[in-house]
């Protein structure tokens, strides 16, 4: 029996110990350097009213949080994001999976979906406001639409790309169509599904924020838009900073979930001491 398999398994579990500095410090260096440069350059290389400066933005962030004025905006935007992303993912998953398992239907439907995919959904923002009003639903719909197409295509491609020999073998082992879906198609497509869901996070944010730019009563997008309209770059950047924090946090969570769901995949760098 080969030793290679056992060695590989042991190597995959070994802790990384190559860098002298913790990974996050090295990762943060470019960001910190940029902030320092910005702070210095503002007022010297370029007028502060154009780009603000990190200290001013920090003060602004403190103000809006301490005064509590930001919380209603955040609550609305967050709710729109969760709804928009959730609905988009659910429909994209269901639609992509169903169409991939139904090749006759796919032949008819796919060209239409492809055509709509090409339409920039941002252009639909004013239309959605007319249809759904300036409350949360126009933003939710816009975000959901953008998320839907992305997730749909990834799921569709993933399920269609499943190894047919695996499917045939599973049938011989006794799998019904539903069991095939649960044990073969879905897990096989999971890398694509997860990829689609990760890529869709910024799209949901874009959809919601642009929707709020177009017309809104409350929300982070409105906050940014208002700051922009009143020549308040600190406010604009403060809003953007909050967005960045959110997207980073969502990305971290998504990464965790992805590692858990896809732990069966071979590491990218098979011969290095650390895993992917």
């Amino acid at each position, binding site marked *: 029996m080969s030793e290679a398999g056992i060695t590989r398994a042991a190597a995959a579990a070994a802790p990384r110990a190559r860098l002298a500095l913790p990974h996050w410090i090295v990762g943060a260096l470019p960001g910190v350097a940029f902030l320092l440069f910005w702070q210095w350059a503002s007022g010297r290389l370029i007028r502060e009213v154009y780009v603000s400066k990190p200290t001013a933005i920090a003060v602004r962030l403190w103000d809006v949080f301490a005064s509590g004025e930001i919380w209603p905006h955040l609550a609305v935007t967050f709710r729109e994001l969760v709804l928009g992303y959730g609905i988009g993912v659910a429909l994209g998953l269901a639609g992509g999976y169903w169409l991939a398992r139904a090749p006759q239907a796919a032949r008819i439907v796919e060209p239409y979906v492809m055509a709509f995919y090409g339409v920039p959904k941002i252009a639909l923002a004013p239309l959605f406001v007319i249809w759904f009003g300036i409350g949360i639903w126009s933003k939710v719909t816009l975000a959901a639409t953008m998320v839907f197409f992305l997730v749909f295509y990834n799921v569709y491609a993933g399920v269609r790309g499943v190894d047919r020999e695996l499917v045939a073998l599973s049938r011989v*082992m006794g799998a019904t169509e539903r069991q095939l879906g649960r044990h073969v198609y879905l897990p096989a497509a999971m890398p694509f599904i997860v990829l689609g869901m990760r890529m869709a996070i910024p799209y949901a944010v874009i959809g919601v924020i642009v929707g709020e730019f177009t017309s809104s009563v409350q929300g982070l997008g409105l906050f940014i838009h208002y700051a922009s309209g009143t020549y308040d770059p600190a406010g604009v950047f403060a809003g953007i900073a909050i967005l960045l924090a959110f997207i980073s946090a969502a990305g971290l969570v998504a990464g965790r979930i992805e590692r858990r769901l896809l732990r069966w995949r071979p590491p990218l760098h098979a011969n290095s001491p650390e895993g992917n």
Partner: protein
Amino acid sequence: MAVPPTLAFQAIAQDFPQPGGGTLRVLDGISFDVPARRFVSVIGPSGCGKSTLLQMAAGLLFPTGGHVLHRGTRVTAVNRDVGLVPQQAQLLPWKTLAENVAFPLTLRGVKDPERTRRTQAAIARVDLQGFEQHYPYQLSGGMQKRAAIARTLVYGPDVILMDEPFGALDAQTRMAMQSDLQDIAAAEGATVLFITHDITEAVLLSDRVVVLSRRPTRILAQVDILLPRPRNMYEPFATPGFNDAYESVWSVLRGVIGKAA
């Protein structure tokens, strides 16, 4: 009353459509039996349709002409009563070893504790204890092959179909696996239909070797191998009678191999 053969191929013909139109007759009237509890190998040149015969027995493909009978009944749908060990181990990459081996039981609704018991027994049968929680990518090629065999043993089908299962392994692992397969087949009383390119492997493992021609494929000969069991996979040439058995297969195959495909 004679026991009917477990698997019977009757006048199997198979045409495949050609890219430029028209059809290619691959199998041209193949008839042979796989008797109960016997080990039958099929050997022949590349492209003669050996894998196609297995797919027909598994109900994944239906012949253009003729029938496959399993226990006397025609195979008309996916055949869940056979075990299939393909060329690549084809473990499901997202399941652990234990989950993979247990998969046929899961599909049949077998619950714990019986499922775990039978899975453990099958894993022990192929000597993979301790690796139950490993994912396929953490197992070597030989280990994956063993796992595929365990997955077939776990639900005890009466026929095991094997498609060149040891072809991709190194010579040492191959001899070990052949030896294990002989033990397992004997212990389980299994009926095996085994496809191979390797005459030595066919002679050492089988009770009968079916030799196929080039396309359009016909049976050139069915050679009974009467060497005593258990046979030594590591020292074939030390077995008395091996040379004659080898020659009896090679004399038929000689005229077929060596020409351009």
